[in-house]
């Protein structure tokens, strides 16, 4: 069995609002990523995907606060560490993060090479400019970016090129885990494909050992990841392999998500796409029962009363629903 690179158990983090209310945006999340694997996180806006990404880095700044749980990266526990230590020793070296608006992450008054210098000097102050240039040149070349990019300002680059430059800079120190939060959602389909290709290359060339990929685009997730985790209102509602989740979802919410996939393949126009009605619950005061009960087609009276635990369906598969697996399959088959 391959080594576990990232092992997160029962991680809970909260936002504290100015009215002193606690909002648990990541609620008892456990996950494992093995060497060379990609984990995808799916879910609609506001379900806690991006908060989970921030929480996994162990770097908390208000209003986000750590509450409980453990994050172990390559055998080292980083949960509850001092934020300053996290910034110096974990970020960039062990975990790198590509934010959603990576396009705006490049300082428009600096050339790309000078941004690279800042990044490397923050971690290894003794590196000379020459060494940095050589490292940057090699990284860019291996990832298929032209060397000229280093001498340009960010405003001279196209959106797709900016995004790929940000990715190249984020892995320049060879982090162990890379978290990509919607890296391609602002790009057109061709640039999106280049970004995806680059993420695959990172793994193949050994720049990173594990990738966490966050998006709401399911066809993309299916093509990039090994395993998929579906989040709803801060909780994991289902996890399993990419294939199982896309073609054989168990949880009614995942089932609903898969019903909204749009791909240019024959047969698409004959099926009626399904959308899930309603909106997710307000996490200031989450429902005591199943969080999806309000929007669920198959809701039962007990759903709204008793909280539901994640139940194991074998082979690393788990789902959060009170209806047993066999019964769910029967319901779906009869639709």
């Amino acid at each position: 069995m391959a080594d576990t690179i990232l092992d997160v158990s029962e991680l809970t983090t909260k936002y504290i609002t100015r009215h002193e209310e606690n909002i648990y945006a990541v609620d008892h999340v456990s996950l494992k990523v093995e060497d060379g694997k990609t984990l995808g996180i799916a879910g609609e806006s506001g379900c806690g995907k991006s908060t989970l990404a921030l929480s996994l880095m162990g770097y908390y700044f208000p209003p986000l606060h750590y509450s409980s749980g453990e994050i172990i990266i390559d055998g080292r526990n980083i949960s509850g560490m001092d934020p300053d230590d996290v910034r110096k020793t974990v970020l960039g070296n062990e975990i790198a993060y590509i934010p959603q608006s990576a396009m705006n992450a490049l300082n428009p008054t600096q050339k790309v090479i000078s941004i690279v210098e800042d990044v490397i000097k923050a971690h290894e102050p003794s590196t000379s400019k020459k060494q940095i240039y050589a490292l940057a040149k090699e990284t860019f070349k291996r990832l298929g970016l032209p060397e000229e990019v280093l001498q340009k300002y960010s405003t001279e680059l196209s959106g797709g090129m900016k995004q790929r430059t940000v990715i190249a800079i984020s892995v320049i120190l060879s982090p162990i885990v890379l978290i990509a939060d919607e890296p391609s959602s602002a790009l057109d389909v061709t640039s999106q494909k280049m970004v995806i290709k680059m993420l695959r290359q990172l793994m193949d060339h050994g720049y990173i050992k594990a990738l966490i990929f966050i998006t709401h685009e399911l066809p993309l997730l299916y093509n990039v990841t090994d395993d998929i985790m579906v989040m709803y209102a801060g909780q994991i509602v289902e996890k399993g392999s990419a294939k199982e989740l896309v073609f054989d979802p168990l949880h009614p919410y995942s089932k609903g998500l898969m019903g909204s996939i749009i791909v240019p393949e024959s047969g698409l126009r004959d099926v009626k796409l399904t959308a899930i009605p309603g909106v997710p619950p307000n996490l200031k005061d989450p429902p005591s029962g199943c969080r999806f009960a309000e929007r669920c087609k198959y809701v039962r009276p007990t759903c709204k009363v008793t909280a539901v635990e994640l139940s194991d369906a074998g082979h690393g598969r788990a789902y959060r629903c009170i209806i047993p697996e066999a019964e769910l399959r029967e319901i779906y088959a009869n639709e």
Partner: protein
Amino acid sequence: MQMSDEKRVILGTSGLTKVFGLGRNKTRAVDNVTIDLYESEIVSIVGESGSGKTTLAKMLLGLLKPTEGEIYFQGQLRDIRSRKKKKEYWKNIQAIFQDPFSAYNTFQKIDAVLLDCLRMRGDGKLPQAQKIELMTEACSFVNLKFAELTNKYPFELSGGQMQRLMIARIFLLNPKILVADEPTSMIDACSRATILDELMKLRDEAGMTVIFITHDIGLAYYVSDTVYIMEQGKVVERGTADACILNPQEAYTQRLINDVPKIHEEWDLSTV
């Protein structure tokens, strides 16, 4: 311009061209485009960033002046030279844009947005009860509940709800043509299907012509009757959605299709 068997052309262009810049920086953003849009159909304009989709839409809307070429509306040469005529034209053509968050006035409550539409329709002096009835009908068209929204500010809604409210506005204004410029690109995938279904509902129930602009050929395939593919300002391929997307003739169209991730077929990453 001419009558077809069933449907009439509502909006047409001939040799439409827009040139930006001067001298060496000249770019032909839209280059000699001739299209005919029929009544009550959804037409997709597909192309990558910078292919001139939005420029074309802006010219159709009358927001940009064409460098060359003509636009015909209901068989006549479009005349929007005076402000009065422009306003008259805009009663027939309306638009929704990419970013629903910036489409609202932050300081106005939601009912103000819809009341504005009623005023534009000339129903501003109706009794209050009748206004509420109309607004409730518009909201229920897009599966929103007017009673829940009435006292809210736009930022209290999700992106999908905001975009649906934009469609409710269109339902009230009831133009003949709707230009939808990337209406789903900032909406998450789960709400996307709802928006597309509502555009189809506008076509089926209100008989509207919808010009759907997108870079995602999958969306175009799902929603449209006719597809136009644009590359560097030119229309390179046109046809019914089935013909254009399942059996593309142009290499460019094929590339756009290849670039969209699939689930039943292998996604080839080596082409970029």
